[in-house]
Every structure is written in C-alpha cells, then in structure tokens.
C-alpha cells in the first residue's frame, strides 16, 4: 500500500494551490459567479498553462496520460476553492469518453484542442426520467441517408452554454434502462436542431438543458458495438465519480478549516466559543468524517483507474456513499458552528454546503449508491 502522492503530483498540487490562492479567493469567486458566463476564461487559461487541461489526456494527443489518481489532488484543490470552471465537464468527462471510445483519427481531430484548453467538451448524458439510473437513456439515434441523427433531451449538462462539442449518449436499440443498444456520439454545439436552455445549478455552476431534434451526430466508436460503448460509458462515469469524490473532500476541507478558524476567533459569553466542550467535540467529529472521506477519495481513484479489478465498482459506490454522507454532515456542522453568518451568501461556508449537495446528485446520490451496493451483495 502506498498513499503518498508522487513528486509530480505534489508539484502540480502545489502550483495549483498557489495559483488558486492568487486568482480564486472567495471574493474573486463571487465576482466570477456573478458574471454573465459564470466562469472565467482567464482562469481557464491559467489552468491550461499549468498543464491541467492536458493532464488526463493521452500523451499521443498533447496530454500527459494521467489517471484518476493524478486527478485526485487536482480535483481536491478545485473543490477547496469552489472552482466553477469546466474542468469536470470537459477534461474529466468529455475527454475520457473521447479517449476511450474514439479511433485514432478522431482522437487526433478532437483531443489536442481539448488538451490545450481551446476546445471545450461537455458530457450530455443525464435525462429527466433517469434520476440516478445511469442506463435510463431515452435519447435515440438513427441513420438517415448514412448520417446519424439524434432525437431527445438531456438535462443538467454541466457547462453546456460554453461547450464547443457535446459528447452524447443515445440508444440505437432496446428500451431505456437496458444495458444493450447504447451508443456514444459527438455533436457540434452549433448543429441545427439543437437547442440549449442555459441555467445555473444550486452551487452556481453554469449548465444547460439540451433538446435534440434530428441533430446530426458523429459516432464515437462503433454505435453497433453496444458492449464496448457500455464499457466506455461506465468508465467515464467512474472517472467522474472519483473526480467529484476528491472535489467533495476539498470542499469539506474548506468548510472544516473555516469552522475551526471561527471557533478560535468568535467570542460569546466572555470567551472563545471553541472553549466549549460541546463545540470542541463537534470539531472532532468533523475531523473523523473528513478522514474517512479522504480515505474514500483514494479508494475511488484507485477503483476508477482499474475498473476491471474485483470489487472496483463496489468500491466506487462505497466511496460516493461515504463521502456523500460525511460531506453533508461536515457542512451542516460547519454552518451551525458559524451561526447566522454561516447562512449568508457572502460567506463561503454556505457555498460549501451547496456544492456538496450538488455533488451528491451527480453519478447517483447517497441512497442510489446504497441501493447499488445492496444489489451487488
């Protein structure tokens, strides 16, 4: 067993932490969230300069070939600073699906631009009727004169409004929920028949609801090879799950740090509130939860990097479940320890709660993970 980050991972984490310290203080984040786009191209540029946008992409296409374990410290820093930029949507989800599904020619066409940060992908998979069922795909793809076209709708597509291309899951066969008949496509964001209703999520992340009406789509891999497409879909969701687990841990670390700091500065009844045993115990419980979550972020990363290993799927579900529970508990406690100030928009701790609430809803919530695990047992 080895839990240490290697030198490169440490160096990257360190650079990222310093960069975010400079450009992503909480007030800077508020300004970015309040802007029309809801994220900053300038910050995105800086992330690209650090090599982050290239991190998990193949070395043959401008990337560094990193895996979930390399992403873990990065996502944790992004979570700590409550970063809004399209890293999860483009680099983790979009690029993973392309990397795993597309042939060489298509990868050469799509990935170098993604690696440099100039082209942004978005992952269009979730649907209204699915909730937490990953294979509930109603979107349908068919061929018209040799051209694939998609009909259907996708919801809560992260960073849809600013994406250049969408990676879209659709069925060519079988009913929603069926493991057969799943295919993946990529679609130009300006394609005819594609409409995007832009909105924000509860944590301020920009997102969109997409409607496809006979939208021209290019296949990623062979649409008729359902088994291969299913593996790509699962691997992409696994990378996303591991990434948000690390993100949630970073968010918890911020909530925890804010609470501990407040306990050591706020005075009531003539003494620091952190001198009250009940509150000291609360901080101790938060630390226990945080340590469990740190462990499970490692578990998720290892599982996502070797999805064929026995128990990998179960470990991913366990990680998402444990982190989902603890992230909520830690953020609840952090808000409570702050009192009124913790309830305000202009203070960071409430945003931590909003972010972990959002993360819980991605890739299956805590209860959905428990149900999956129960079905595996």
């Amino acid at each position: 067993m080895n839990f240490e980050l290697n030198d490169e991972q440490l160096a990257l984490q360190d650079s990222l932490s310093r960069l975010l310290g400079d450009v992503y203080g909480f007030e800077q984040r508020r300004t970015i969230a309040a802007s029309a786009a809801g994220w900053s191209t300038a910050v995105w540029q800086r992330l690209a300069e650090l090599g982050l946008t290239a991190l998990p992409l193949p070395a043959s296409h401008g990337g560094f070939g990193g895996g979930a374990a390399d992403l873990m410290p990065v996502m944790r820093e992004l979570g700590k600073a409550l970063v809004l930029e399209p890293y999860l949507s483009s680099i983790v989800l979009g690029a993973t699906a392309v990397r795993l599904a597309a042939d060489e020619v298509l990868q050469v066409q799509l990935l170098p631009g993604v690696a440099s940060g100039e082209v942004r992908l978005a992952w269009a998979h979730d649907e209204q009727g699915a909730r937490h069922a990953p294979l509930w795909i109603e979107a349908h793809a068919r061929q018209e004169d040799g051209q694939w076209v998609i009909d259907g709708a996708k919801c809560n597509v992260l960073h849809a409004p600013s994406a250049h291309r969408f990676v879209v899951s659709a069925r060519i066969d079988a009913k929603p929920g069926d493991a057969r008949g799943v295919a993946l496509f990529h679609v130009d964001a300006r394609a005819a028949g594609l409409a995007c209703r832009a909105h924000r999520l509860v944590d301020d992340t920009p997102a969109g609801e997409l409607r496809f009406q006979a939208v021209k789509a290019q296949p990623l891999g062979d649409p008729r090879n359902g088994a291969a497409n299913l593996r790509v879909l699962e691997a992409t969701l696994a990378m996303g799950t591991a990434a948000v687990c690390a993100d949630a841990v970073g968010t918890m670390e911020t909530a925890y740090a804010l609470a501990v700091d407040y306990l050591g500065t706020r005075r009531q009844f003539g003494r620091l509130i952190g001198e009250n045993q009940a509150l000291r115990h609360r901080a101790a419980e938060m630390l226990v939860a945080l340590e469990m979550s740190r462990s499970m972020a490692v578990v998720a990363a290892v599982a996502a990097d070797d999805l064929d290993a026995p128990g990998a799927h179960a470990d991913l579900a366990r990680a998402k479940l444990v982190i989902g529970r603890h992230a909520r508990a830690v953020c609840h406690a952090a808000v409570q320890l702050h009192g009124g100030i913790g309830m305000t928009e202009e203070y960071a701790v409430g945003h931590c709660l909003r972010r972990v609430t959002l993360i819980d809803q991605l890739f299956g919530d805590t209860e959905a993970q428990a149900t999956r695990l129960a079905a595996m047992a």
Partner: protein
Amino acid sequence: MNLEPTASQAAFRAEVRRFVKERLPTDIRERLRLGHPPRKQDTVAWQRILHEKGWAAPHWPREYGGAELGQAERLILLDEMFRAPAPLPQVFNVGMLGPVLLKFGTEAQKRHFLPKLANLDLWFCQGFSEPGSGSDLASLRTSARREGNDYIVNGQKIWTTTAHLADWVFALVRTDGEGRKQHGISFLLIDLRTPGITIRPITSIDGQHHLNEVFFDEVRVPAGNLVGDEGRGWDCAKYLLMNERTGIANVGLCRERLDYARELAGRLTEAGRPLLESPKLRAEIATLEAEVRALEVTNWRFLLSADTAQKNPGFASVLKLKGTELQQDIAQLLQRIAGPAAMERRPHDGEGAGHWAGPLAMRYFYSRAASIYGGTSEVQKDVLAKTILG
C-alpha cells in the same frame, strides 16, 4: 387517559378547517404547497381575513382584537394553518410584541398598537441580535441615551428578519452601561421611517432576502415608545421568548411537508417506477412520521398538563430542539426526493418560478437556519442541561 380532543375542540377544528377551505385564496395555498415562503401581501391579506374571526391574534383579549382562546384552540388554529397550508399570522406582531404590550405596555400603547398589530396595519420586526451578540444576547451594545423627551439610539442590529418589509422594529437597547449586563437594557418601539436608520439586505444561502442589518445613527425615538420600565427590557425579552411556545415545535409544518413528500414521491418516477415503490423510502417517511407523532403528543402534553410543565421547566427547549431537527430532516428528505430536478437553481419570481423542484433545494438550505435562530440548538441544550444538572 385518552388522546381524543374534547367535543368542543373537535368542533373548533372543523370550524377552522371549513373557514380555511372557503376563504384561503387558491394561489396562496399553491405557492406555499410548492415550498415558497409567503409573500408580504399574502400574509397581510390572509391575516386580515383571519382577523374577522378574531383568529389573527386568538389568544389576546377581545377588547384588543383577540378571541381569548386557550392554548389548545390556539394550537388547533396553528395546526390548521400549516395543514392548509396558509400563511401564519405575522409572528413578530401577534406572537411576540402583542403579549409583551399586554403585560408591560401602558394603556395608551395598548390602545394605539394592538389593533394595528392584529390587522397588520403595522408590520413589526424584531431587533435583538447584534454582530457581537448572538447567543450571548445580553451583551448587546446598541445604545439609547435620554435627551429631553426622546431617546437617541446608536448602534447596529443584524439578522433582522423582514426588516425590509417592516414599518416598525421592537428593539433591545442599552440605556445604562453599568452593572450586570442584563440590567440597563430597555425595550423600545422604533418607527423605521425615522431619520438615521439604514437597512441593508443580507442575502442568505438560499439566494433569498429574508435577513437584514439595521443601522441606527443618532435616531430620535419618543420616550413614550419605551415599553415597561427603563432598564427592565430584559424582563420583556424573557417574557417574549417564554411566551412564544405554542408554535415552537411546528408540528403542523412537519406534517404538511411529509404529506407533500409522499405526494411527490408517488408522482415522480425513477427509471419508469414511482419513487414511492421503494420500501426504503417508504420506511424513511414512516420513521419521520413516527417522530412527528411523538413531537405532537409531547407538544400537547406540555401544553395541557401543568404537571409536566412543572416537572420539566426546560420544556420549550425540548420542543424547539426536536422540532428543529425534524424540520431539517424533512426539508432534506424533500430535497432528495426532488433529486436531480432540484439541482437547477430557480428564481422565486420570474421565469421558472412556478417549477415544482425550484423551492425544494433552497428550502433545504434555509432549513439549516432553524437550529440557529430563536436560540441556537447549543443554547437550548445549555438551558436543558442547567435544568438537569444545575
């Protein structure tokens, strides 16, 4: 022993339910059912309708616009408001200031203010908390010095709910800086239009404007607006906090939200099946319902049995602690039932406002305040512990 209401209580409940059914405007009911907070105009309109029956301030004497109802009838009324759901009578007016004026106010103050409080001709807010004085309320520093027939008020209040909607504030101010900190506090009624008052909005984590900061800069308040004796405002504050117990548990609210959870879970589907088919979810709702039943009976027991109240002087804290916890659990349950649909932040007004999922995540976020306002859970536990261990 029996748990049945008396015949007159049952009849009263039926009468209230009929009245609410006939008179509550549908749009108000629907907004509240979706989980939106009541708008000011809704609270005003509904309170005036209730006031026709004396039900806006049911526990007040008739001569001031009340109906002289007992605790049981009051709780039944409140229960039925939650059940409808209808806006509650404005709590600062009716539940807090009214009783303080009835006990400590001069005859002139009663005649002038009480009818306006009951009919919501004046909207009062509560100016207690300050930036350095939250749980430790008695450490407050907003000052009032006497100048002729006026007090001159300087300082700052915070977390002032609905100050931006209010006409007046009842505030605790320091009229004497010497001695014990509970001494030297006075209870003042202040017209918010007085020069020198600035109200600054605080947006809370649900994106809403419920809270405010209120700044006082050389604000001149007629001495006739002092309630009770100068320097004895802490007695008023204690009375106010002790008096507002009937509704502290919010049992009716828990019930109504759980009913809504069931309704939604029966309607929403995951992968083609209603959520309510999940035995786990059904068990979870049932567990919360069991807890709410315990809270309901405890609330009644504390209200109706003098014996219990004497044995447990901290009973208001029992109700506040458990009621808060259940409200938060239920708000969280509703957020989870709404699921991915509540990931989208939707405004309370404007486009998308009517969407069912919009308010549920936001209401969950704001539910975290329930264990902070009105005495944090930590303060409630301290109160209880003191009754147990001294």
